[in-house]
């Protein structure tokens, strides 16, 4: 009964059954249209984000970037034999840039390219890897035996003569830190949500809930700083591993950032389970704990699951904490080794990447991947929550 009146109240707040008294004046009609248009800005923004991040990464997907060290060189004397199209793509110019250049500049550019090619040492010229376009998908996701290695390996090493862009070490690093973070945060946050929403006395609840939500107000750069200076040392002396800054420290610190989000969403879900469920259980002789564990938690399980999914999205996307705590990209599943996540790589390497170059575009590709992953996890969480709400309202 309580719930139905609540649902009615939220509907009635709008203008559901009220018809307009006056016909809108022309100026108001325009204002209302403007409100209508501006309100769609969130959709526009999501679209723009996807479009402009993907736009910078597109040449990689199309395979039109070439990161090989040794490339085909056309002597400057052959300038006149090339068609404008060929010349433009050879020099990597945009149409506007090409239109602004005169013959002399073009010739100089070609000479520069020629000289650059001449400067590559004989040792690199011999190397079979120097002719490989490392932005091909094979080199991005499959192990490859680089010269100097005795077996095929996953290597992320974007700086140097030969750019190694294998993204698997970054994925593993992300999964490592995220996994540790969720393993640490989810039990704590869900346990606390269960306690605060079902078991605690009202006075405890009034203090604990805003305090835990205050944790989300601490900037992630401050959490990273705390992990770097204090936690790393403490955890090392407790667990006694070798590398001081590793995925374990980063993951634990990530947990601090994930706890508030998992807590507040699962607390919401637990609180929205009708009070009558608990009352019925208690009336049948169950203890408070059993009512919470066997009645309320199963009823709120979809909501709690959504909280975990959103926590996952947050942990995957968190940048500063992992950036400050560990950075070396090592292909290893050991959580006590260092790790480099996708976000960290973007943040650390964008400054040194040449705008429009292959490194720059690979980083945007990683960003698009990240966007896709969090977009998907958001959709899943939202679907679960909306179904959960319908079920609680008894509409399904």
């Amino acid at each position, binding site marked *: 009964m309580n719930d139905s009146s609540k649902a009615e109240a939220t509907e009635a707040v709008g203008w559901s059954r009220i018809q307009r008294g006056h016909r809108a004046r022309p100026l108001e009609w325009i204002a209302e249209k403007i409100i209508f248009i501006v309100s769609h800005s969130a959709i526009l923004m999501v679209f723009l984000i996807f479009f402009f991040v993907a736009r910078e990464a597109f040449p990689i997907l199309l395979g039109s970037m070439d990161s090989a060290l040794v490339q085909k060189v056309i002597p400057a004397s052959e300038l006149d034999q090339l068609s404008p199209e060929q010349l433009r793509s050879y020099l990597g110019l945009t149409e506007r840039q090409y239109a602004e250049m005169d013959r002399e500049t073009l010739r100089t550019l070609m000479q520069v390219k020629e000289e650059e090619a001449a400067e590559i040492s004989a040792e690199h010229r011999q190397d079979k890897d120097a002719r490989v376009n490392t932005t091909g998908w094979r080199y991005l996701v499959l192990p490859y035996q680089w010269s100097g290695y005795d077996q095929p390996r996953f290597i992320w090493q974007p700086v140097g003569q030969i750019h190694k862009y294998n993204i698997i070490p970054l994925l593993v690093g992300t999964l490592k830190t995220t996994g540790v973070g969720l393993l640490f945060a989810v039990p704590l946050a869900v346990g606390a949500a269960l306690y605060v929403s079902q078991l605690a006395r009202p006075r405890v609840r009034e203090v604990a809930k805003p305090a835990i939500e205050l944790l989300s107000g601490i900037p992630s750069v*401050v959490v990273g700083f705390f992990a770097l200076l204090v936690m790393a040392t403490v955890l090392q002396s407790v667990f006694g591993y070798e590398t001081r800054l590793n995925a374990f420290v980063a993951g634990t610190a990530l947990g601090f950032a994930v706890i508030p989000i998992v807590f507040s969403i699962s607390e919401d879900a637990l609180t929205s389970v009708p009070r009558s469920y608990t009352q019925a259980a208690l009336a049948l002789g169950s203890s408070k704990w059993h009512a919470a564990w066997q009645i309320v938690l199963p009823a709120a399980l979809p909501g709690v699951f959504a909280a975990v999914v959103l926590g996952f999205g947050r942990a995957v996307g968190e940048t500063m904490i992992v950036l400050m705590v560990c950075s070396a990209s090592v292909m290893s599943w050991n959580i006590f080794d260092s790790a480099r996540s996708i976000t960290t790589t973007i943040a650390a390497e964008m400054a040194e990447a040449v705008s429009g170059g292959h490194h720059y575009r690979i980083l945007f590709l990683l960003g698009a991947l990240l966007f896709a992953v969090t977009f998907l996890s958001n959709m899943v969480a939202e679907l679960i929550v909306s179904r959960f709400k319908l079920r609680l309202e008894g509409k399904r």
Partner: protein
Amino acid sequence: MEAPVTGSRINGRHFRAAGFDFASFFFTGLTGLATMLILAILAVILLNILVNGWQGLSWRFVSTIPRKDFFDPDTTGVLPMIIGTTTRVLVMTLFVIPVGVITAIYLGEYASGTALSTRIIRGAINNLAGVPSIVFGLFGLGFFINFVGKNLDAMLNTSGPTWGQPALLWASLTLAVMTLPVAIVATEESLRAIPPGLREASLALGATKLETILRIVLPQALPGIMTCAILAVSRAAGEVAPILFTGVAYYMASLPKSLADQFMDLGYHVYVLSTQSPNIEQTRPILYATVLVLLLLTFALNLVAILIRAHVRKKLRALH
């Protein structure tokens, strides 16, 4: 499951508690401990920063523009970072509040809750809230700088890049896109809190819908809109990842003079001090002090907004 009746432990609050229920006791304690642990983590972080940062904090520290070497504890200061962070947050507020409020008005007052378009808008807002902050940084670089800025430069025929490079304006706009969901959700909440009777009364007296919204609903919602500004500001003040490529500078000798300038930032400065210091023991005091300033600034911005809100509330109450 039934625990033996001991008699001495009777708890009158449960019917079942004629017997001591060990499982209930244990698990209630366990979840209570989880809560305590989270609160303890929060307390340790805040106390650690407060205790260690207090010593390094002085008037000279917050009012000095540092020289090139800002790792030296005796001559360094954080004035440009404080100004940079405050400015970028204020400029962001100018953009995000109007858009956020208008969207919330549409969702709360015009849209029907079940229509497909409304559901799509809500989905977009939820998605925007979940996009990683570093992706916003990439978006700022790809859209504002490389697309809008470069085209603006080409249109204005500037000599050299003016807008097609990292700038205060681009950082603020990127943050505005990031905090849009916070602003919308908070404003909508405050619109929902206004009793429908007020709207009905206004309409009954012959006002149009827009008049009702502008004259009745919005003034009532003003404290709530202030709250939404607080939330957006406190979220944005500590964010570093979105501004990494869109406007922050490692070092600047002077304060930013226009929106096209780069700026120094407190959060980014914390990152620089803690990861690039040549001697971490020596920089530790100023690092802690900088973190404390960042936290205090966040709280101070909050406090100002809370005071404004209290003032507005008092005024509104006088109106009734």
